């Protein structure tokens, strides 16, 4: 074998495991030998991972087959796990250990994965830079002075830095797609309801969705196949069969695998404020898709800008309600010597939540309060319908929608500290699809300013994950963008 083990992706590693040319134990050891210089991991359980890898090797030697048997990964710390503590990046859950596994975690374990631990994220997944974790910022492996994106910043940095072949993430307003774009990896947020939310610590329940982050569309398909499916424990879980994404993906061939595919480009996704380097990389990606047979057509998403206020009212409203469960009584931290019940609640929450979380709770409390509900929350939900309808109108003229994931490459750490609203504005291209509950993907398409990666966003209609994966896979069969690795990762 000529390639270093830490460079292996999921599909490559699996075929070596299946051929008996690689042990899970060696793969895991190679990954554990690499120092985490980016603050990606909150907990790296070397002993647990080695034991699980040895067990996977023994199962394989005994003739057992599981789709991901022996594949190393780690979980965003928003998924509860019985084996490891779960913090959601918050001080309020310091030391918390769940009595059960999230469904997504349980399904991946069932499929045979070996968990290396828990990955850093913005507190309760609220953030676009992974600067809001109570346990330290995550750095971008391409340039440690820059953010990795968020909220799944630890997942993105670990996969980009070759500390892991893949990781789980969650996406409420772009938290898989934007960090994937900022770190040059591939990530997919499936249709709302495709992956169970059971055991995924709730931020905004009508938006939260789990998905995989890896280095290729094929690797994402491997993970998503194990993660997706109906779960009776999640009231909004889709009662839809999970398609054979991998089989469909492998069935494509010829020099024009995208022949007949109409890709819609919304004008609103290419505004004047879009950075020129991002625009150039995205256009290069689109030109490549054209070469593969796709046809580019114009579409309109006229309420793209409105998605920002709509999202930033709905998500905090849901968060203020969801986060009321952190009261210092049933789990998590409690303040010292509370003088009465109100003092217990208030001090526990004020000491336990970081500033961004407290801001969003207050926004949510305001827009849901008497006298303001209709003007803010209800108005936002009506606009959410209009945004979703705009997508349905656009999909009459195309099969997929494409554009940038974010208006810029990853920014410098601390660059948006002065004004939280500035970071909200940068979510403009991921929020519309989130509000509509549509599947979306980020696929690397080159580099922009400072050599930083740029992602192409693909948005499909409901349940069309297969079309996204197929398109991304065709692009990755024809190009090498997804193979680029940060220089920083090549040192060790």
């Amino acid at each position: 074998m000529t390639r270093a083990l830490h460079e292996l992706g999921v599909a490559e590693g699996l075929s070596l495991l299946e051929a008996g040319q690689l042990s899970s134990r060696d793969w895991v050891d190679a990954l554990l030998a690499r120092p985490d210089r980016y603050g990606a991991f909150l907990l790296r359980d070397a002993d647990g991972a080695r034991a699980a890898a040895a067990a996977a090797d023994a199962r394989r030697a005994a003739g057992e087959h599981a789709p991901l048997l022996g594949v190393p990964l780690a979980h965003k710390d928003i998924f509860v796990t019985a084996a490891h503590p779960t913090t959601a990046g918050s001080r309020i859950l310091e030391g918390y250990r769940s009595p059960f596994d999230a469904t997504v975690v349980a399904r991946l374990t069932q499929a045979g994965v070996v968990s290396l631990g828990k990955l850093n994220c913005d507190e309760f997944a609220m953030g676009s830079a992974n600067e809001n974790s109570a346990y330290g910022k995550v750095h971008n492996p391409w340039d440690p002075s820059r953010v990795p994106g968020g909220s799944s910043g630890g997942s993105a940095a670990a996969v980009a830095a070759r500390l892991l072949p893949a990781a789980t993430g969650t996406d409420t307003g772009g938290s898989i797609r934007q960090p994937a774009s900022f770190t040059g990896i591939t990530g997919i947020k499936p249709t709302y309801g495709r992956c169970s939310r059971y055991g995924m610590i709730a931020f905004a329940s009508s938006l939260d969705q789990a998905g995989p982050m890896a280095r290729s569309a094929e690797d994402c398909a491997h993970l998503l196949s194990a993660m997706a499916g109906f779960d009776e424990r999640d009231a909004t879980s889709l009662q839809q069969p999970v398609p054979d994404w991998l089989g469909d993906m492998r069935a494509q061939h010829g020099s024009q695998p995208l022949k007949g595919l109409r890709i819609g480009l919304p004008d609103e996704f290419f505004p004047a404020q879009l950075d020129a380097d991002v625009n150039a990389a995205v256009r290069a990606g689109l030109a490549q898709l054209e070469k593969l047979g796709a046809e580019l057509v114009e579409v309109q998403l006229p309420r793209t800008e409105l998605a920002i206020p709509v999202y930033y009212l709905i998500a905090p409203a849901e968060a203020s309600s969801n986060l009321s469960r952190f009261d210092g009584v049933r789990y998590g931290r409690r303040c010292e010597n509370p003088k009465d019940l109100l003092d217990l609640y208030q001090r526990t929450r004020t000491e336990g939540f970081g500033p961004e979380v407290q801001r969003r709770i207050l926004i949510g409390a305001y827009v849901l309060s008497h006298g303001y509900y209709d003007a803010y929350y209800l108005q936002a939900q009506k606009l959410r319908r209009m945004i979703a309808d705009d997508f349905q109108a656009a999909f009459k003229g195309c099969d997929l929608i494409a554009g940038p994931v974010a208006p810029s490459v990853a920014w410098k750490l601390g660059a948006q500290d002065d004004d939280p609203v500035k970071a909200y504005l940068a979510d403009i291209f991921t929020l519309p699809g989130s509000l509509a509950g549509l599947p979306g993907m980020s696929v690397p398409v080159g580099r922009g300013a400072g050599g930083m990666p740029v992602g192409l966003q693909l948005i499909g209609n409901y349940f069309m994950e297969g079309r996204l994966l197929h398109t991304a896979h065709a692009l990755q069969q024809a190009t090498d963008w997804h193979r680029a690795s940060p220089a920083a990762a090549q040192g060790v």
Partner: protein
Amino acid sequence: MALNLDDVARLAKLARLAPSPEQQATLLTQLNGFFEHVEAMRAVDTRGVQPLYTPLSAVQEVSLRLREDAVTESDQRAANQACAPAVEDGLFLVPKVIE
């Protein structure tokens, strides 16, 4: 319509948060900055539009799924209380509420 410091104090109490006076002042500036961005949204005519509370209902009928009224969970009280800050005899402890 801008918020004032009394609004921030009222919201903080509703949300069971207790920011310091300095934090309240910072929050006031940030919240007013935020709500300025929201104004554009309020001007849109949405008369007759049905709110979209859950995304799939944009394209299909979504009804609340009900399960059989049967016991499916076993007693997990000890496991569920293992991470509680204070428990005694299977009960959660809080400061005295009634004198």
